[in-house]
């Protein structure tokens, strides 16, 4: 067992967990943040993507103890009073059907927009960048549309700031 302390969505949290506990499970089970999903056993689907120290990572492929001392952002931390522009764009462009992949898609999308800079994405880049996020429902088309729209909206400074 280890004592783990991290900042999650701006709040300092600690808890004790087995060293083998995955960050995804620590978030879901110890902290009750069930927005982060686990969709596979092979580190391939991206349903579990969160930001650790500002970078998108697969929380199913990192131990909670590895994340000790870090700053973690999950899907629950994204919205302020209004939805984050990426969330709003997914709703507007019908970027989800069952919604299982959506938290990971949105965390991947915000990371992508942060890295490239708002307004600097094109369809080819978005599709390439979604390599690590699998969706069984949508066929990706509306996800790509939503991310491009959010990137443009954020470039125009519509509403919220970047995550």
């Amino acid at each position, binding site marked *: 067992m280890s004592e783990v302390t991290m900042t999650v969505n701006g709040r300092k949290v600690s808890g004790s967990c087995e060293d083998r506990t995955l960050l995804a499970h620590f978030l879901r089970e110890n902290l009750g943040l069930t927005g982060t999903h686990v969709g596979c056993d092979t580190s391939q689907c991206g349903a579990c993507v969160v930001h650790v120290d500002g970078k998108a*990572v697969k929380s199913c492929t990192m131990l909670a103890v590895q994340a000790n001392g870090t700053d973690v952002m999950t899907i629950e931390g994204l919205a302020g009073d209004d939805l984050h522009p990426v969330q709003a764009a997914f709703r507007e462009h019908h970027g989800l059907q069952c919604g299982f992949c959506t938290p990971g898609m949105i965390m991947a999308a915000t990371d992508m927009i942060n890295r490239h800079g708002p307004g600097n994405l094109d369809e080819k880049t978005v599709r390439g960048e979604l390599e690590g996020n699998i969706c069984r429902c949508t066929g990706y088309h509306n996800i790509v549309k939503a991310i491009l729209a959010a990137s443009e909206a954020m470039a125009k400074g519509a509403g919220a700031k970047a995550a």
Partner: protein
Amino acid sequence: MYNVTYHRASSVEDAAKLAAGAAEAKFVLGGQTLIPAMKQRLAAPSDLIDLRHIAAMKGVTDSGGGIIIGAATTHAEVASNADLQAACPALCHLAAHIGDPHVRHMGTIGGSIANNDPAADYPAAMLALNARIVTNKREIAAADFFTGLFETALDEGEIVTAVKFTAPAKAGYAKFANPASRYAMAGVFVARSGGSVRVAVTGAGDNGVFRAENLEAALAGNFSPSALDGQTIDPANLMSDIHASAQYRAALVIAMAKRAVAAAG
């Protein structure tokens, strides 16, 4: 995953000491290979020694000709490093096409070469660049380091701390990625320095990464894709699996070698 005891090493010496004191220790850098293997119970170390926070193992230094990349440098950092972009953009291109963005934020060059997956990208670059693998005990030439499928020359408890190479005059990398995993079904790194050309192939050999000497000879005289017209790779020593037969991989190697030469310019 079986239970495990985690240790965060503060220095290379500390890590070596922690490993020596454990029943069955494994080092972890990005964890992008090891954690999935532990989840599947294919790996079950008693102790995990985390090397990711050792400052001396991070970053890129270019000391005029000699480039050193710390083992804990992530794929994303290699892909975007300005010194490497100038000295060997082919390596940045390679790193930028490993897995996906999330894997690249965690996975490291040291973890990749220590693992020596026969379909991993970095081993081809290390062999073609004639790199030296630096450990806490010695330096090993890439040609002696990669010894087989998931096998390296590392001793028990030996730690890869960095890789070193001289910037080539020209280099290029092209891979035909497995459509599901993005690992190489055939990946070819070509590097030209002075009159000599080195060509290393990953993803295809049945004993891991190898040099294609006939392609090197053909390119030494004429460094252009057309120099490879009519060249072949013997399928006898290539992998055959559900993704591709040995014959298909042999054809892919030539096609990727041509693309790598074209990319090298």
